[in-house]
């Protein structure tokens, strides 16, 4: 019996090398040459010497962390509800998670314009309650952007955690209960370590999604808040500064990878993972 997988793999492998690996390598090379094609570090030097670029970079990474933190706070009760739910209720929760996840990001961003707009329900409620003198838009600030991105990225964190829960069995938590542990203690010593791999997988996706969501950042954040996607697009589409855009993109890639590696390392740390 001699089965060879290579012929089946070859077309996708070829596309992956020519369409993915090669362009990324070129991007890397491009970020180290000047406009005449000779090697230089000037693109990076210029980036790190420019306070505006640095602030955009820091703001973008901070935005990613804020969204990760908020989604974690909101995802925890949802996943706990899933943990305690009956099989039928679990199916409903999965359905309610998939529905927003599969709905277009632009559609969800648009819905938030309605919700946070001047004539939206929140603005009206604030006036009714006497908390605001006149209807006003709640859009175009970082808090609104963090909330909206948290809603948009939430399913990407909830689903992996629910997948981990669905595979686990309840014996450990039942044992802890028999030994007299209260629900909060079970949450901290049994459930959280069990869910940690799911959270880790989700954090990576949420961080990548929140830092690169061009449409949501532009529409909800408004013109005055600039993050890396808008910056890269302006460098390329408006100013034709390809080498500097390549350098910025590479810094974004490096920053994202480093943060993901750090998150992975943290989750493997014995104090976080050791309880399981």
């Amino acid at each position: 019996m001699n089965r060879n997988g290579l012929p089946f793999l070859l077309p996708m492998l070829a596309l992956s090398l020519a369409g993915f690996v090669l362009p990324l390598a070129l991007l890397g090379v491009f970020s180290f040459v000047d406009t005449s094609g000779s090697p230089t570090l000037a693109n990076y030097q210029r980036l790190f010497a420019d306070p505006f670029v640095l602030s955009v970079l820091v703001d973008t990474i901070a935005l990613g962390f804020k969204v990760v933190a908020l989604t974690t706070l909101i995802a925890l009760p949802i996943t706990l509800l899933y943990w305690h739910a009956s099989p039928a209720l679990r199916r409903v929760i999965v359905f309610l998670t998939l529905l927003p996840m599969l709905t277009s990001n632009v559609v969800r961003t648009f819905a938030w314009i309605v919700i946070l707009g001047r004539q939206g329900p929140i603005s009206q409620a604030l006036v009714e309650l006497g908390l605001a003198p006149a209807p006003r838009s709640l859009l175009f600030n970082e808090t609104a952007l963090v909330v909206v991105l948290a809603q948009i990225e939430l399913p990407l964190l909830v689903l992996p955690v629910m997948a981990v829960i669905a595979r686990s069995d309840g014996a450990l938590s039942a044992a802890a209960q028999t030994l007299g542990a209260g629900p909060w203690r079970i949450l901290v010593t049994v459930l959280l370590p069990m869910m940690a791999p799911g959270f880790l997988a989700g954090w990576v996706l949420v961080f990548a999604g929140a830092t690169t969501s061009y449409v949501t950042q532009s529409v909800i954040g408004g013109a005055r808040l600039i993050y890396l996607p808008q910056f890269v697009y302006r460098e390329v589409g408006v100013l034709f500064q390809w080498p500097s855009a390549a350098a910025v993109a590479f810094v974004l890639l490096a920053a994202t990878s480093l943060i993901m590696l750090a998150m992975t390392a943290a989750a493997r740390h014995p104090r976080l993972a050791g309880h399981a």
Partner: protein
Amino acid sequence: MLEAHRPSDWAYRLFVYGVGGLAILFMVAPVAVGLAMSFTSGQTLKFPPDGFSLRWYQALLDPAQSAPIHTAISHSLQIAVLAVIGTVLLAAPAAYGVTRLKPAASAAVEPLMLAPLVLPSLVYGLAALIASGRAGLSPSFGLVVVGHIVVFGPLMYRACAAITQRLDPSLEEASALLGVSQFKTFLRVTLPLMLPGIFAGMFLVFMQSLDNVSVTLFLADPRTTVLPLRMFQMIEESLDVRVAAISGLLIGTVFLCLLVSWRVLEPRRQH
């Protein structure tokens, strides 16, 4: 359950069922708002709407008013369909092929196949633009399709690999003993078994392609307008209520697809 009367237990229940319920509401409500907004009879995005009407759907369907939107929808559908076909042709066989390699080889290939999933697609869009420019290609409809196949291929690959990695090799061995070639065995034995994974992958690739902005933004020429970017423009320029009608259509499509797959696939999964 023994100590359900302890105050900490009440707090815990409130947290799980109360806060958990509110959190689910937060996750789902915007979808409901988007759907409800599309039926407004008003001229603005006032919510809750003053009255019910289908006027924005009519405006959206009217070719005289909405021709550019129709073009964008048509482009997006074409790109999504071609991306689905491309990923089926490339990623489904690859998901089979990788299970027929030596373990060391498949361990080396697997991360490469999945890599586009974790890379910020914005970085890829820029890289693809630079590479295609070097190759003498200018942005075009075809480049967008290829870009989508590269970026969403892993979704199809992962959906199919979930099945191929659990396939019983004795089925193929039986076919080989009967003298059937490996390629015919793949078509007649393996591929039919992979169909649930392929369908799941098709759905994911289609929806993601329809929604993609960051790859299309870099690879499309000005004539290749696509739906999400068109909607983005309409939102930025005028807060056009027709965006609500497009949203309503997209939400309805997702809802129906989910409902169908929920009804059709779920009972089988429970054996």
